C-alpha cells in the first residue's frame, strides 16, 4: 500500500489563503494531502514552525505568501524570503531533502496556480517517500 504524504501548508491570510479559497469557489481540484494553517502574514512564520511540522510527522511543508511587492503588510514576504535559505541549510544538515520544504507566492486571484502548486508538490513529496527525520526531530523537540 503506497503511503499518502502529509503536507502542512502555512498560508498568509491576504493573498495565498484567499487564493486557496478562490480555488475552492472555482471548484478546481487538487490532492487532499495538504492541511492548511492560516497566519496573517508569511512574516509570522517562524522557522521553528517548519521544523515542528516535520517533527510531528509532516512529509512536506509549503510556505505561501503574497508576490514580492504585493504584501498586504508592505514587506512581510521579503522577511519571509530572507529567512528561508538559512532554514533550508539547517534542514539539509538534518537530512531533509530539498523538495520537502517549499516557499512560493500565490496571489488572491491565483486559484488555479495554488491548485497547481499543491498538485506538483504532492507528487514530488510522494516520490521522495515518507520523511525519515520524523523520529530524529521528535527527540530533539521533546528535549527542548
Amino acid at each position, binding site marked *: 500500500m503506497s503511503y*499518502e504524504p*502529509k503536507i*502542512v501548508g502555512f498560508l498568509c*491570510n*491576504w*493573498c495565498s*489563503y*484567499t487564493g*486557496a*479559497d478562490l*480555488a*475552492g*469557489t472555482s*471548484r*478546481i*481540484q*487538487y*490532492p*487532499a*494531502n495538504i*492541511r*492548511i*494553517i*492560516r*497566519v*496573517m*502574514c508569511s*512574516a*509570522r*512564520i*517562524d522557522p*521553528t*514552525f517548519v521544523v*515542528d*511540522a516535520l517533527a*510531528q*510527522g*509532516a512529509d512536506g511543508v509549503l510556505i505561501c505568501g*503574497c508576490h514580492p511587492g*504585493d504584501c*498586504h*503588510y*508592505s*514587506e*512581510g514576504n521579503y*522577511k519571509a524570503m530572507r*529567512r528561508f535559505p538559512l532554514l533550508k541549510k539547517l534542514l539539509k544538515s538534518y537530512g531533509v531533502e530539498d523538495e520537502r520544504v517549499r516557499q512560493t507566492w500565490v*496571489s*488572491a*486571484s491565483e486559484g488555479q496556480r495554488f*491548485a497547481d502548486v499543491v498538485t506538483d508538490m504532492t507528487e514530488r513529496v510522494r516520490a521522495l517517500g515518507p520523511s525519515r527525520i520524523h523520529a530524529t526531530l521528535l527527540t530533539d523537540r521533546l528535549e527542548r
Partner: protein
Amino acid sequence: MQNSRIGVYICNCGSNIAHIVDAEAVKESAAALPDVVIARSYRYMCSNPGQEMIIQDIRELGLNRIVVSACSPRMHERTFRNACKTGGLNPYLCEMANIREQCSWVHADKLAATEKAIALTKGAVNRVRYQEPLDSLTAEMCASTLVLGGGIAGLTAALELALAGHPVYLVEKTDRLGGNLARVDLTAPYLDSARDLLTERITHLRDNSNISVMLSSHLKNLSGFVGNYCAIVETNNGHNPPEEKTIHVGNVIVATGYKEFDASRITHYGYGKLPNVITSFEFEQMLRTGRVQTKSGQLPQYVAIIHCVGSRSKEFHGYCSRVCCMTALKYAHEIKSALPDSYVSDVYIDMHAFGKGCEDFYKKSSEVKTLFLMYGKNERPVIRKADPSDDCEMLIEVDEKLSGERIEIPADLVILMVGMEARPDSAEVARLVNISADKDGWFIESHPKLDPVATTTDGIYIAGTCVAPKDIPDTVAQARAAAGRILAKIAKGKIEIDGVFAEINEDRCSGCRMCNDLCPYSAIEFDVVKKRSHVIPAACKACGACVAACPSSAIKGRHFTDQQIYAQIGGVLA
C-alpha cells in the same frame, strides 16, 4: 488550557460540504477528542437556528471554547464570533476550520476529504484550547473622506458624501475635473451628451461647501488606520518646492480611472504613419467640433471601425474592455447621421451588447445600414494605403469569418477602438494606500462577487474603471456604493479596533531594538528610560513580523501565538 469546555459544530452547508465530507464521521471523531463537551452536525451553521444552537450550548453547557468546521473564516468568522458574543463568550474564543473552500470543494475523493476534514477540525480544537479572550479597542471615526480622482466616479462619490453633510477632499492629478468622460461627446446607447452629465455633477460640486477640490495634486503619503488616516497631498501649482497639505480623513475612495491603449504598438494598423487612422478618443474630439473629415479636410465616403485594439489579444491584454463595442455602434450612428451617403464598416470579433438597451442599439445600427464584418481573435486586419486609382484612401485586408473569404475593405477614415488599460501610476497608488493590483494592474476588490468596492485594507475603497473596465452606469453605481459604505461607517460614529495586535513582554525584552525597524507601520517605539520596546496597539496591524523575528521570544502575537500554532500543527498531523 486547563478546564476547556469545547463545543464543536460541523456544518453540512446543505450539500456543499456534506456531499463529499462525511459530516457525521467528523462529528464522531470530534466528540471523542479530550475536552470536547458536545459535537454537533447541522445543515447550515450560519443560519439563525445554527447560531442559536451555539448560543444555547454556551449558556446551558457552560462552553468556553467554540470550534466551527464550515466554510472559510473569510466568509463567516464574524458571524460565529458574534454568536459567541451574544452567548456571553469572548469572540476570540472561537475558531473555524475550513472544510468547504479548502476541502469539500476541491477534493473528489470522499474518504480523503473526510480524513482531511477530521484533521483540520482536530487542528482547530487543539488551537482553540490555547486561545485567550481579547478585548477590542474603540477609536473615533473621522467623518472626512479622501477621494482620489476627479472623474465621474470621484465626482459622484464626493457629491454623495458631501450631500450627506460630511467633508470631502477631492484630489485630482490633472488641472481639470471630468477625467476621461470629459473627452467624450455622446454616450451609448441613448446618445446623451457627456458634457451635460459632467456639467451637472461639477456644478453641484462647486456649489457644495463640504467639498475641497485640489487640482494638479496627488497623494504623497498615507498613514494610520481606518477612521484615522493621515494623508499628505502634494499640489503642483508652479511653486518650488510644491505645496504640501496634511489632511485627516476616516476613509479613502480610490477612483483613479484608466488610460487608453497606445495604438501605435500594433504596427499593422499603421497608427501614427497613415494619417487617417485615428483612435476612438481622437474621433470623439472630431465629433465635438462637429465635423467628420479626413486629415486633408474632405468628407470620407468609406469609414471603417475596428474593435478590440489592444484588448482580447494574447500579445497585449487578454481581457475585454467592455465599452468599446457599444461605443463603436454609437460612432456608426453618428457617422450615418452626419454623412448619410457614407458607407460604414464595423470590423469586430464578437459584439458585446451586454447592458440595458444595448441589444436594441445593435439592431438599430443594422437598420442604418452598417456593414458588420467579423474577424478572428488572433488574426488581425492589416491596413495599407490604396492605389491612386482606387476610390478610397486605404484598404483593410482581413480574413472575414462570416463569409469565409479574405476581403479588402475600402476606407477613407479608420477608427481604432482602443481598449482600457491600467494607468502607469496605479502600482504607486496601490502601494501608497496598501491595496493590491492584479496582473493587469486593476485594483483587487475584497470579494469579486460579494464585496466589489471594498478592499482587503479597511477604510480603503475602490470604484470605477480603476478596478476593471466598465461603463458609466456601473462606474456610478460603484462610486455610490463606496460612498454608501462610508456613510454607514460614519453613522456608527466609533470604530472598533481589533483586539489582535502584537504585545511585548517587557520582562523578556532585551532592548536589542531589532523589531523597531522591522515594523512597516512604525508601530513599535523604544522607551529610552526603560530601555525596552513597546507596541502601539492602534497602529499595529498584527502581521507578526516582529513576533517571528524577536530573538528573545519576547513578543506575543495575540491570537496567533506560537503555542496556538504548534497545537494546530499537531492537530492537523495527527
